[in-house]
């Protein structure tokens, strides 16, 4: 019978994991919702974030790397978008396949530059090690991860909901014509959104790297939950992405406690259940994607 310390640890792990999933999924969904592109390279960009941080940390320190690495990934995203934009308006399959090819090429580039071996990244000293809180031992670093994640989510929410440009981004998904009519450069907006979405993946990669260590193949594992979160949460909903991410993280964390074997499978069971009850996802809005 698991005791209270174990239960709490798993719940906390689930929350941290969920927040991380939410960030990855949100970046993915921004691109999906605005440009109707399934960005397959999202996972490998997550990995790239970690690798860039690995390269930068010895030179500029952990915090600077935390800012610079996602910027680097965003830059890569900008370049990618130049190719992706040729697939807009066509069968969504093309955008998907293009990013799929990009994912393969990028993963190989990572392998060429850094080699196939794994790397470990250390956390900054002040968050290294566990802390005590009564009966609870918890990793200080994970608390930092949670804090950073919440900050980022709040930032993105503020951008989308409270700034005029954010409103344009939200509108752009539904009505490109209108956006152009308002005098806003649609092409530039799309580049920006793509860069933002990929930068978020990169940031998630930076903060996850010390927990999960780095290998060229971790991208594939990171992108799968993003799909499921978007399906569960509903496309086009910020709240859905966060809720979906948290649900997924908690489900994974709890199942780790009860039946560790199924902790990955439980994600899919959850997805199937949600789809049966709410085919459009928990908070999904009818979007152009369904036409």
């Amino acid at each position, binding site marked *: 019978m698991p005791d209270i310390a174990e239960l709490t640890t798993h719940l906390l792990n689930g929350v941290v994991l969920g927040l991380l999933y939410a960030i990855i999924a949100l970046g993915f969904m921004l691109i999906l919702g605005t440009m109707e592109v399934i960005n397959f390279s999202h996972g490998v960009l997550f990995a790239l974030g970690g690798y860039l941080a690995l390269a930068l940390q010895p030179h500029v320190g952990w915090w600077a790397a935390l800012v610079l690495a996602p910027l680097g990934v965003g830059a890569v995203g900008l370049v990618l978008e130049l190719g992706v934009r040729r697939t807009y308006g066509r069968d969504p399959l093309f955008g998907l396949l293009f990013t799929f090819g990009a994912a393969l090429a990028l993963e190989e580039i990572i*392998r060429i530059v850094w080699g196939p071996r794994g790397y470990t990244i250390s956390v900054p000293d002040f968050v290294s090690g566990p802390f005590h809180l009564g009966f609870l031992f918890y990793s200080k670093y994970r608390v930092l991860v949670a804090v950073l994640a919440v900050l980022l989510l709040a930032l993105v929410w503020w951008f989308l909901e409270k700034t005029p440009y954010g409103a344009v981004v939200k509108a752009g998904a539904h009505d490109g014509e209108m956006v152009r009519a308002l005098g806003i450069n649609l092409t530039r907006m799309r580049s920006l959104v793509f860069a933002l979405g990929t930068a978020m993946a990169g940031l998630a990669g930076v903060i996850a790297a010390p927990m999960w260590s780095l290998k060229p193949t971790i991208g594939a594992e990171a992108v799968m939950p993003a799909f499921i979160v978007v399906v569960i949460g509903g496309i086009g909903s910020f709240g859905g992405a966060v809720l979906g991410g948290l649900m997924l993280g908690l489900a994974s964390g709890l199942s780790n*406690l009860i039946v*560790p074997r199924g902790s990955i499978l439980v994600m899919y069971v959850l997805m199937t259940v949600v789809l049966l009850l709410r085919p459009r996802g928990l908070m999904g809005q009818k979007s152009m994607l369904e036409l």
Partner: protein
Amino acid sequence: MAHKSTTMRNGLTRRQLLTGAAAFGAAVGLIGPWRRARAQSGKPILIGLTCDASGTFADSGQADRRGMILAIEEANAKGGVLGRKVEPRWEDTETDASVAVRKAQRLIERDRIDFMIGALSSGVAAPLSDLAQRHGIIYFNSNSSADTVTNEKCHRTNFVWDANNWMFANALGPLVAKNLGTKWFILTHDYVWGKNATAATRENMKKVSADELGELMVPQGTRDFSAQLLRIRSAKPQVVIANVAGIEQTALREQAYEFGADKDAAWVFPQQDFPDMVTLGPKKAFGYFCTTWHYTVDAPGSKEFVANFRKRWAGAPIPVPDNVSCNGYLAMREMLRAIERAGTTRNHDVIKALEGHVIKDNFRKYPSTIRPWDHLVGQMLTLAKTKRETDMKEKWDMIEMIAEIPPEVAAPPQSLSKCKMEAIADTPVYGG
């Protein structure tokens, strides 16, 4: 529009065929003349190297290959084998059984290799040895530690050069029980290899009278070890036997170190390949393990081998030989020597030259033997632990040897063998 497309499709059939054939021919034709040119440059002995360059075992796969290439180059420098040059043909098996089978098939059919060597993952070794037996090609598992390939899945053409799960468990058991404690907690990597390793551990526990305080599974893909670490902390074992490999092991170690759990008990990782230790660094590669060899071993021939290796592979990710590359080297060298002894590449004769052969110059204290009943190379094992950073003379000097176990004790006795090999007469003839 649907109707129009239908007529279009019908009308194009013949033309399409021509274009299609042309394109197909062009694509494959790129390979054609190029390959023929290679075949005409004499009749070298072709060895297929099935080593991973990507996937979980990428680092070790490359170390494996480095050992093999060195052995081939040394043989060629002495004039080749049977007066013929030895040429490697390498394929990246991607730590994946399915890819390995496909590429091995290609090596056999397209490149017409004479012998095959490689494999780290047991998942790759088993189907490849099946494939090799079907064709009659001699296959050396240089570095996989599955028990099955020398028991239920043994084959006449297959030879296994690394120690296996049984050996690791049985070598460690008595030493661990005596020196570290008898209250054990087990972590099992939840897939075939991990479960086999734990089965071997349990069998051994009975012999050394150790108590199992508990077991936790580590599913593949686990990145969160707080559950396991917490449970261990509350169970308070003296020893943790961690049958966990690959990236899960790396993550486990990271978090154990982060949580301070590496001090909770004596951690034993029965299987530890050196390339994985390099990734972790001395602090996080804590614990005890069993190994077959390391470059700091002082034995006849060892220093020369290490010097040659260091010269040849100066720029490599791991420029010193380790247990993985040493296995690769020895396996390759012995294969070539056996061909020389047999005087032919005909598989039946080479097999006979291998069975029962004793290898004295294996750079360690006790010679190894190629056992004829299961084709396992019986060798010595050493209990070791990770050196403290302050004790290390250079970056690669991470291993401190503690106690030796001679081959007669380390290797499984014939009475336990479940191997029923095909008779030589039933093995298809290949080569010669």
